[in-house]
């Protein structure tokens, strides 16, 4: 574990990514405790305030403290993105491994179907599912998870197929090991690494997708402190104060960049050849 961390910190992507992601996760956990002001408290007299000691990043159109809202909002945006990606990855990995293991016509059928599903843009897919289930955070989570599953299935399958061709799997088959053993002990440990990398990078997509859904009014609902929703609400007032638009945008970008960098860092760190 220590050695792995060292490898991760060796590349700038890994080091910065890990730092940002840890910071974001800390905010997710401790954000509500750290928030200096009540994020929901409206103050008609303190609207569009510039950053000050009381309001570190200023206030929004209702006089709410932007900094506190960002700290609280991390939960809505980041936790949902991570959860949705994990669920999507698990479903996709299951489909992908099954397909690779079955092989032949069944594999072809599953993969062509996955391709077909992928021809619907993820955002559109998420919009449809949210609309079907009704706009809410949980439904948005399900939508993003479903939208991610086909892509992850594809990646898992190609990784699993390349592992399946390895001689250590052949050796296990020639030895007469059971299919369950081969999948669980020989293949899985070698399939997991690239999938974790891909998943980490996809978390950043999920963050953006969630924000976009909220922006379009199909994710979190006001007065929630979701970052995408904050941008959406700020649009009408951006002429009055750019801060209410800029800060949530920056928060989305930082969280997304962090996971992206961490994914690239993990790719190098998990590669046994480097």
């Amino acid at each position, binding site marked *: 574990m220590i050695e792995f961390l060292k490898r991760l910190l060796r590349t700038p992507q890994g080091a910065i990514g890990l730092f940002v992601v840890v910071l974001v996760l800390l905010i997710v956990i401790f954000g509500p405790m750290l928030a200096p002001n009540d994020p929901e408290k409206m103050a008609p007299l303190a609207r569009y305030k510039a950053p000050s000691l009381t309001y570190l990043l200023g206030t929004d159109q209702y006089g709410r403290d932007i900094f506190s809202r960002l700290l609280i909002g991390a939960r809505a945006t980041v936790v949902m993105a991570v959860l949705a990606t994990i669920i999507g990855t698990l479903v996709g990995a299951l489909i992908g491994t099954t397909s690779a293991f079955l092989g032949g016509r069944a594999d072809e059928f599953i993969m062509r179907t996955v391709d077909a599903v992928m021809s619907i843009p993820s955002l559109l897919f998420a919009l449809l599912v949210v609309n079907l289930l009704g706009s809410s955070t949980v439904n948005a989570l399900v939508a993003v998870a479903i939208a991610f599953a086909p892509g992850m299935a594809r990646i898992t399958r190609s990784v699993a197929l390349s592992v399946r061709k390895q001689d250590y799997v052949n*050796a296990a*088959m020639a030895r007469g090991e059971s299919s369950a053993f081969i999948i669980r002990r020989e293949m899985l440990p070698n399939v997991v690494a690239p999938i974790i990398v891909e998943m980490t990078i996809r978390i950043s997509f999920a963050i953006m997708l969630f924000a976009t859904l909220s922006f379009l009014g199909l994710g979190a609902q006001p007065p929630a402190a979701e970052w995408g929703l904050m941008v959406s609400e700020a649009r009408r007032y951006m002429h009055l104060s750019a801060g209410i638009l800029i800060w949530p945008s920056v928060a989305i970008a930082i969280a997304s960049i962090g996971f992206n960098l961490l994914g690239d860092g993990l790719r190098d760190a998990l590669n046994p050849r480097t």
Partner: protein
Amino acid sequence: MTSTPEMPVLDIKNYSLDYETANGTFHALKGINLSISRGEILGLVGESGSGKTSLAWSIMRYLSKNARETSGEILLGAKNLLTMSDAEVEAMRGQRISMVFQDPSTSLNPTLSLGTQLSEVLVRHRGLTRKQAWAEGEAMLAHVGLKTPADMMRRMPHEASGGEKQRVVIASAFACNPECIIFDEPTTALDVITSRQILDLFVELQAETGVASLYISHDLALVSRTASRVAVIRRGEIVEQGPVQDIFANPREAYTRELCAAVPNPSRRLVADGVTKTEGEPLVRVENVSVHYGRKPLLASLTGKAFTRVKGNNAVTLSVNEGEILGIVGESGSGKSTLAKAMTGLNPFEGKIWFDGRPITGLSDMDTAYRKDVQIIFQHPDASLNPRHKIGEILSRPLKLYGDGSNIAQQVGDMLEKVRLPRTHADRYPHQLSGGEKQRVAIARAFASKPRLVICDEITSALDVSVQASIVELLLDLQKAGNTAYLFITHDLNLIRQIAHRIAVMYRGDLIEIAPATEIDSPERADYTRRLIAAVPLPAGSQV
């Protein structure tokens, strides 16, 4: 002119090269002294990591950024290459020194025609127009023995065979009449017969042009038959150099002696003959086994067009006796590995395998008893050992599958000792072991169940000669101890003639013939067998 007959074309004096790595300085080359004169072939022999390729890059001035040249000079004529400017180096490459590479399938650009890649050298260095260069290129391809040069010029690399491609590479190396050519293992990636043809072409062209040649190889037998002088390199140092006969007849250094002794030599048989002529049933009998690959394409099945599947094996019949070593030789694609896979249930097959009197017709017949008795070892230990499992875990699997599963740690240690590895290796991961050590682990895994037949699929071909010799010695000891039969698949004819009782020759999925190892070079053998035997250079000093 600067080079007179007395003066060497290429003269390397006290040359040293370091690489700066994260783990400190690595001395790749130490005080190298070599010279090649006009008309001479200098063979440079060394095992992997000896620095032979680093030397080639130094001469070509193609060094990585972390390379530091700490001493010496490389003289081409009177000019020191180390002081050349980038422009001078570019003008020199391909013009005064050129190079032939190991693998023609990777050293040619897959998206440019062979003609384009040949003629661009002529345009660059001889100032021809593209049209002139193309015509000249055609003439050159004819000269290197290609039958249809005009057609070959237009072909893409994937439309030509390995041998044809290597001829094109050789043509471009000779294109500008260079003073010196470096041959970096030019036949290693080719099949036996093709590689002999390429070697003959090289000798012929070299004699014709008198170009000073540096022939880099790991294959002592091959170098002893082509070079006039040999230099042996080890860990960045020239151990010994001199005329071929001297080096091979009476090597002065211990390392050279070891290396010479490790080279497989058919006249030095390592197994006793005749002991396995047992009466009665053989241990395994492969009866009309065929393997097919591929699926019918969609269009063919729609239009009802006939479709012939790719043949891996075509009704192969052979048998192995108890305690016998049966060698299977053939070029790549001859179906030797396909047979190994069929016998271990990794390929579906048609036909029948009789094992110890029991018929096996498919995967479902291969029960634990069969698995226990028939084990396989693969070519690359890197691939056959799971990189995320410790050695102890890898070796414990057969014990749990076939044995009583008690006292695993003790048994794993014993297995490691049996293949002459320290017991402590059980705690290591494969990547912490050398190639030879990894192959020993794979051998230990195969022998854990005390099998009666072990299929060895090219298990020494990824290893250096000295490592190969020790692995072969281990295998023979294990064979004698357990009276195990081997199906030894290889493309190395000299090796198999040393260790096999009988040899089966395969060609494009067909079994050509089976003959006793001692009679494989008899004139009564099949045509293909004779061509194969004739193509393999025997080590210097051995009786043909």
